[in-house]
């Protein structure tokens, strides 16, 4: 016997404005199986929930439908409400009459009719809902952090300091990320190397952190609390256990190729460390450029290595790690200059990007902090910065704001003026957005004290004119055309997600937006979690941001991991597949279709068996089952048929 209660929420006016909530409750009170129906202004408020509890007890309800907002908002809320008075939480269903009804329709009569049908269909589903009990599974209290930029470093340290083990996987040979490439950091102008290297060293020495540099995630299986991760340790051709880090090999290597760390401004060797403060500070051999590995001759490094650490036979190896949570902190890259035809398509040496300028301004960089332009090494006297290149340009490139450019451009112009006092810096901008703490003050200081000339407008074209770069732009505030003969131009290129992130997201089964930035479970309320349970997001991988925001988010992600690990068992959703052994004919369709290897065919009994801890509850096997033996808990075929009937009959 069904004793169902229906609770219709007004959501202030959000629902009540377009759906006649009174009428809805009235109609529904006569529906078969319903013993009580009412409406209230805010069902999710304390008095609203208290009312539900009272009525569940008073009317001895065995099922509850709350007609309100989307289940993603309050399903858990109301399930907890009914559970607190002894009703099985899975006997509570949400009828979404806000997001998919009152908010998208204006006509009150039509919206009310539709709401009635939605509630009726939900009641039909509820009638057949089973009382389910969540499965409990143990949690492996170890975390994997992917990416060792400042985000990954902070997250690893926070988790490790709370006492849990961390495996940190970084694809480069050292951790540090982009922060280590920067000159000084806004808004305080402290040296990033000085503030980041102590943290890097801490990571390297922390007893709870296992640092796997020069490694990548190959495969992930399992689920929250119980992931199995296969990690590829790329061949470095150097036995890091033997290597003392003396650097003789690097000195002797005859090969010179552009250095990625220095943004291709200068050359590095084929055997190299990333930068002097690297952690771990061990070299790798770049197999694409090593003479021995490409042409079979040279071996200069091997001959000179006293520790006998060079090993040309090294192969990629794999390690497996068991972890309970995964933090993704894969960071960002800059959009390629070559994509912007009107700014020289990357062909002009003296048109550089923001990170190249950082290297030129960095006291420990290739020009020791005094910018020399790439073409001929001259110190530029007229320098033009162009903001928003590729950003905020939905027609051609990316619609979003890259967030850090306004601030680093004023920083770079200030640093430039410090070392080239007789130089002139021009900045072309669309808007200036300096919204952080101390940021506006930083901007004003930069503009006033350094006489940086800010010009509001777009640059239409750049072209080479002798040894200068001609900049054609407009100042939209004065309406003048502007032409500058610049010695060097810095393009604030759009910030984009780091290479390969979409493939990685696919492997991890987490989602990314159109551009590849990882999507959070909720933009406001769950900003550091992914929708897939057990995954957390940190840093620029989730969207462009500066270091203060990155660090805050990384600590947020770490504390989410900590709170997950503070439990001993994890409860697994019981909305999974189950087999009716009587009906199963052992065809094995379900086994083939399962993406998680959660179903086995018992060879002896010829019946399918679901591993309930592994089943994710997608329902694919149920759709594939020809006999109807495989059913999706609380999404059974009968339930769907009844819902369809409530709608169309």
């Amino acid at each position: 016997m069904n004793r169902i209660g229906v609770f219709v929420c007004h959501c202030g006016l959000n629902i009540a404005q377009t759906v006649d909530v009174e009428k809805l409750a009235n109609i529904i009170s006569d529906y078969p199986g319903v013993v009580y129906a009412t409406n209230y202004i805010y069902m999710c408020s304390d008095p609203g929930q208290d009312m539900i509890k009272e009525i569940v007890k008073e009317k001895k309800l065995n099922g509850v439908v709350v007609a309100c907002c989307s289940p993603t908002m309050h399903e858990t809320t109301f399930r907890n409400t009914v559970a607190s008075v002894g009703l099985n939480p899975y006997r509570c269903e949400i009828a979404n009459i806000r997001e998919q009804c009152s908010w998208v329709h204006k006509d009150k009569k039509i919206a009310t009719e539709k709401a009635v049908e939605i509630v009726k269909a939900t009641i039909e589903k509820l009638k057949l809902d089973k009382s389910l009990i969540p499965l409990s599974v143990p949690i492996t209290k170890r975390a994997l952090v992917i990416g060792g930029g400042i985000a990954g470093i902070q997250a690893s340290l926070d988790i490790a300091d709370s006492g849990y083990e961390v495996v940190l996987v970084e694809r480069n040979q050292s951790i540090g990320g982009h922060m280590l490439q920067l000159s000084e950091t806004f808004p305080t102008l402290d040296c990033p190397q000085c503030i980041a290297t102590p943290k890097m060293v801490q990571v390297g020495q922390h007893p709870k952190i296992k640092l796997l540099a020069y490694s990548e995630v190959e495969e992930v299986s399992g689920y929250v609390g119980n992931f199995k991760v296969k990690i590829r340790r790329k061949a470095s051709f150097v036995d890091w256990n033997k290597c003392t880090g003396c650097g003789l090999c690097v000195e002797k290597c005859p090969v010179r190729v552009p250095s990625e760390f220095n943004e291709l401004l200068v050359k590095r060797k084929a055997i190299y460390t990333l930068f002097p403060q690297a952690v771990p500070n061990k070299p790798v051999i770049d197999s694409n450029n090593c003479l021995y590995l490409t042409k079979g001759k040279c071996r200069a490094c091997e001959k000179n290595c006293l520790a006998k650490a060079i090993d040309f036979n090294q192969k990629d190896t794999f390690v497996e790690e068991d972890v309970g949570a995964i933090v993704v902190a894969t960071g960002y890259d800059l959009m390629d200059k070559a994509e912007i035809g009107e700014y020289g398509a990357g062909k002009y040496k003296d048109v550089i990007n923001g990170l190249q300028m950082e290297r030129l301004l960095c006291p420990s960089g290739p020009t020791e902090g005094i910018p020399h332009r790439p073409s001929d090494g001259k110190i530029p006297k007229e320098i033009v910065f162009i903001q928003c290149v590729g950003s905020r340009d939905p027609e051609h490139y990316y619609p979003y704001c890259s967030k850090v450019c306004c601030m680093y451009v004023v920083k770079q112009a200030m640093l430039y003026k410090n070392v080239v006092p007789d130089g002139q810096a021009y900045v072309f901008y669309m808007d200036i957005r300096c919204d952080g703490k101390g940021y506006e003050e930083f901007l004003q200081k930069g503009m006033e004290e350094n006489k940086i000339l800010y010009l509001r407008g777009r640059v239409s074209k750049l072209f080479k004119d002798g040894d200068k770069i001609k900049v054609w732009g407009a100042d939209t505030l004065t309406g003048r055309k502007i032409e500058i003969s610049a010695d060097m131009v810095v393009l604030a290129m759009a910030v984009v997600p780091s290479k390969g992130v979409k493939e990685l997201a696919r492997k991890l089964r987490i989602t990314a937006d159109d551009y590849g930035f990882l999507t959070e479970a909720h933009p406001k309320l769950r900003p550091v979690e992914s929708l897939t349970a057990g995954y957390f997001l940190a840093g620029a991988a989730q969207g462009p941001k500066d270091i203060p925001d990155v660090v805050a988010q990384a600590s947020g992600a770490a504390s989410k991991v900590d709170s997950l690990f503070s439990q001993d068992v994890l409860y697994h959703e019981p909305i999974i597949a189950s087999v009716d052994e009587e009906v199963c004919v052992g065809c094995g369709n379900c086994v083939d279709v399962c993406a998680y290897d959660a179903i086995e065919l018992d060879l002896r009994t010829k019946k399918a068996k679901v591993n309930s801890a592994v089943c994710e509850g997608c329902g694919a096997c149920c759709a594939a089952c020809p006999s109807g033996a495989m059913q999706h808990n609380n999404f059974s075929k009968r339930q769907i048929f009844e819902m369809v009937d409530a709608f169309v009959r």
Partner: protein
Amino acid sequence: MDNFEPKIVGFLCNWCTYAGADTAGTLRIQYPPNIRPIRVMCSGSVDPAYVLWALLRGADGVFIGGCRPGDCHYVNGNYKMRRRVTVLRSILKTLGLGDNRIWVKWVSTSEGKIYANTMSKMTAYIKELGPNPINKYWSI
């Protein structure tokens, strides 16, 4: 005929299309009211029998919404669904129910606008097509 308001039953996957439909709501994008949404965990759980059932019971159209290729929360449920629907379409044709009453669309969480547009287009299309012949001729 002019005031024919089709009934469209929708199967929306929990992780993308259902959330995309919610996004349409959050953005207050208006669309025709004809869709009757049923939330399923994944488009890959949509049994062809659901579609047949809906059509035999008189629905004028069936909409299936899943995550975009490669984005299915359960790896590849959306591909499984697409394969099943292809087979189902040919069966429907033989039955004379018309294969063009089933619409499949990938709608991601952020694509409220695409969801709303699809609903407008599909409703207009089914209006043009007329009611499900079951209702008119089969009288079951």
